[in-house]
């Protein structure tokens, strides 16, 4: 009873992700400097910023891979370093070996690996959970397929199912829209929306500023420091963007129009 009431307060009062004065460095120049923000549960958030702006460092910090120089990342009130497995990582499409001898079902089953001690076999229950997750993304029909035999949208769904099977409440997606055609981009976005509907918090590294406003509830604009965090209209501000993306201003004239329309 005591335990369950604590759990309740956990998910209702604590934000899904709380980054608190985070500073991370690999040398004299910090990759992230004094970054703080708070993401409530159940949101679809985009991380934007130029190359080398610290996006992947932020992802690593949230995954608990890094020891920050200062500051802490809390996931549902718990320090990220102790919350292994609460965050599911969805890899960039280009970094996956699509020829790997593994079936759709086996990929989703990997989501359960963190829940089974290494000396034990995977039980019936784990297979069931993997199947349920596949059902959730409507991919049960393809469970025996090798992953390379799927379309781009289907492949994304498999990795979303893996995140579901992992039981993670927070999903980190690394450039899910990189190098896909328009139809696949649409299909992937649908999957993200559904996952959000299922109550998950999604943090998506994104590179295309023209679609950022349309796709996300809120945006994080990053370049070493946190330049802005908030609604797309507020973040995709001409002055802010020109400050962050110095020199690459050409696209912004179109952009201010699209944001004005929406």
């Amino acid at each position, binding site marked *: 009873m005591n335990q369950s009431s604590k759990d309740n307060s956990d998910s209702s009062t604590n934000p899904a992700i709380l980054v608190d004065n985070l500073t991370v460095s690999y040398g004299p120049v910090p990759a992230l400097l004094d970054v703080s923000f708070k993401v409530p549960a159940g949101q679809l958030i985009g991380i934007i910023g130029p190359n080398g702006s610290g996006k992947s460092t932020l992802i690593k910090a949230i*995954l*608990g*891979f890094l020891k920050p120089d200062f500051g802490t990342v809390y996931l549902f009130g718990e320090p990220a370093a102790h919350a*292994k*497995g609460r*965050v*599911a*990582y969805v*890899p960039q499409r280009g*970094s*996956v*070996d699509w020829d*790997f*001898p*593994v*079936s759709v079902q*086996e*990929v989703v089953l*990997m989501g359960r*690996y*963190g829940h*089974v001690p*290494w*000396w034990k076999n*995977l039980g019936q229950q784990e297979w069931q959970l993997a199947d349920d997750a596949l059902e959730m993304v409507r991919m049960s029909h393809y469970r025996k397929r*090798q992953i390379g035999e799927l379309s781009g949208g289907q492949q994304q769904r498999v990795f979303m199912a*893996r995140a579901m099977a*992992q039981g993670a409440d927070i999903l980190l997606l690394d450039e899910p829209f990189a190098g896909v055609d*328009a139809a696949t981009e649409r299909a992937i976005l649908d999957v993200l929306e559904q996952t959000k509907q299922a109550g998950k918090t999604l943090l998506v590294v994104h590179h295309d500023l023209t679609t950022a406003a349309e796709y996300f509830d809120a945006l994080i604009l990053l370049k070493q420091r946190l330049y802005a965090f908030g609604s797309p209209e507020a973040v995709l501000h001409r002055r802010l963007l020109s400050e962050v993306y110095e020199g690459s201003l050409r696209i912004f004239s179109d952009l201010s*129009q699209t944001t*004005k*329309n929406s």
Partner: protein
Amino acid sequence: MQDLLDAFIEPLTGIHFQKALIGAALSAIACGVVGSFIVLRRMAFLGDALSHAMLAGVTSGYLFMQMLFGYEAHAPAMIIGALLAGLVTVSAISFVSQVSRIKEDTAIGIMYTGIFALGGILASVFSDRIHIHLFDFVVGMVLAVEDGHLWMIASVCALVLCVVILFFRQLQITTFDPIMAASIGVPVVGVHYLLTACTSLVVVSAVPVVGVVLVVGLLITPAATAYLVTNRLRTMVIAAPVFGVLSVVVGLYLSSWIGNVAPGPMIVVVGTFQFIVLLCIAPRYGLIADWWRRYQLAPQTLLEDILGFIRDDGRQHVPLHEILAQIKSPQHMVRRAVRELQRQHLLKEDRQGIGFTDVGQHEARRLLRSHRLWETYLEHVGTPEAELHLTAHQLEHLHDENTVDYLDDKLGHPLRDPHGSEIPEDFIDLVPGATIKASLLRQGHQATVISVSGGRKDHPIQEETQITAGPRRGEGNLWTFVLPDGSLIELDHESADAVTVRLDNTGAS
């Protein structure tokens, strides 16, 4: 018959052959299992490096025991030396690639040749003390395998199998998705070192069989062969040792029948041959299967030509023989294409002939739109009229939505092509409820204005008004819209593009 049987049994009577067979087979099993992961992790070159570095380790181990304790060819010391050499090589490689801009493959090349050469120097300087043949070391000495070796190989095999069975999940997930593995707490670096240690052990066990130069052949060739025939890691890890043992058995028999052939190279040659055969005949990823799939595949252009033909014919059902007679492609290709279209649910066949499904109708209309827009474009850029149709016929196969929409917009959303035929509207985007530019509307369409971009205060259309598209004026370059109060306004292409509307209905059509 008896002769044939003897040919198989006779070599088995020799004790050397027996030992060779057992040792080589066990080694091939260990190699196949570990090799599967090596292949998937693209570590083949590292395997090669480890095998070469062993020369230095074995020589050092040999000299160490002989000089200090007087043991001749002390097997455990040689194995420990080999493992140490492997460890030094791996550490040196990761050190160089981490602290400098040198990439890993170059670092491997530098370090293993260096350590291999060091072994070569040791072996030549102390050649009077070392009583093993270097040549054996290079091409193997499987027929001279001793009991000590056999035990060593058997232990390695047992150990490697245990590791792979126990840590199968960890090996699988760190190979497939190391970042995810780390995020759920799998020690990725630890697993990597475990696999590297297994590789060193396996290499140590395989050197007596095929020699340093050829170890990689036994390590990765059977695994690569298995990779060609399966889609599951489990199956691959089982199939690779099977292919390995097969090449060992065949290789040893061949070298015994031919005589005077070094068995190590023979084993590797058989393995390579086995790989090439499977590369051709593997059921799914083989060259023949690939060729057959391609042969089965009807070209996309032919599929589209058939759709176009049925559409232009205009009848509900077109008999197959008319299609065969009219399309200028080999009959078997056309038949195959028609079957393919049925499989894609674009065409259906009944007693009266072949006709469109709803999806097929849609697809055919899309192609028609593409064709007519391309024709209009070609005229626009000054293509001679005689070539219009034929060139458009080739270009209509470039019909993805973005391309077609681009043409449509560039040409000012034309209504008719150069021959005066109507160009179908953009029916992909023109679905009720969709948000589109007003310039896409055709006569009779009703829509509600959502926004007018560019801050044109003088724009005659205001937000939230419902407009009905009227006929085009001028040379088709002036849009007319009827407002709710019955008044009529005229917009050019640019002004019509500036108006974003939500389509309410497409009127009669």
